[in-house]
């Protein structure tokens, strides 16, 4: 299988840096990221016969990579101690279930540019990281390349209702975190 190895070898030189950078921003740990990238190339070698050149090797490698990252999140979710989601973000509501004024009145100036603002994206990243592990793994898994929620539920073996509960609380926490890191201070960078 010399030719196959040659092909993959050229991809290793061309794409490792991109694959690694992406993985590192998702899994934080360097050794884990290295393993994931390495396994991606090994999988690619094994299934090279299934690769159709029209999609481009980078896209194909990234899709293998994302599957491996999804597996990582799934494992992580199972490893993390069980955690009561229903308490998360409770502080935003009063005893009647109404949003407290201090949280409901903050306006976000949300223009299109903000979506691509690297400082803002960095703030989002930190806020996701700050979530309880049980929740951040779900969030990361859900938005990893537009995974539909049903397959997320299957992978994590949780019900849809449970999933919505987690996402509900996670979004509330992300809201307050972003408000603290960004919107309240009136950053106009």
């Amino acid at each position, binding site marked *: 299988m010399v030719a196959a190895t040659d092909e993959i*070898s050229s991809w290793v030189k061309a794409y490792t840096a991109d694959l690694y950078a992406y993985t590192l921003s998702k899994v934080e740990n360097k050794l884990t990221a290295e393993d994931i990238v390495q396994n991606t190339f090994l999988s690619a070698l094994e299934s090279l016969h299934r690769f159709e050149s029209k999609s481009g090797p980078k896209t194909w490698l990234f899709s293998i990579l994302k599957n491996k990252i999804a597996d990582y999140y799934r494992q992580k979710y199972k490893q993390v101690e069980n955690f009561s989601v229903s308490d998360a973000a409770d502080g935003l509501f009063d005893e009647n279930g109404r949003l407290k004024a201090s949280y409901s*009145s903050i*306006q*976000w100036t949300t223009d299109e540019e903000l979506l691509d603002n690297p400082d803002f994206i960095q703030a989002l990243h930190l806020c996701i990281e700050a979530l309880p592990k049980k929740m951040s793994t779900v969030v990361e898994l859900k938005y990893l390349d537009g995974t539909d929620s049903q397959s997320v539920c299957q992978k994590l073996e949780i019900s849809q209702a449970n999933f919505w509960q987690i996402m509900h609380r996670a979004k509330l926490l*992300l809201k307050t975190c972003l408000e603290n890191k960004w919107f309240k201070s009136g950053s106009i960078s």
Partner: protein
Amino acid sequence: MRRLMNAVMLHCLKATYLIEKSNDAPLGIVEKAQLNMHLSICNGCRNYLKQNRFLERLLKRHAHTTLTAKQDTTALEVKILDELHGK
């Protein structure tokens, strides 16, 4: 009347839950009606609806972004090539 109102009306905790759920699955007729009624009288949740939709777009974008600067992966590449040629 008040008790009836409380029974029918959602509070924000439930309303924000429905807002989140609607990102993923269409709400039932009753849920939709209840949510709309709540939104018509609650500024906070109307505000939250906007923020939630923005967060959705942001998170979907985030899936494609690499936050780490490109690293020197020469050593890793050598390691991978060794592994591949070992096969």
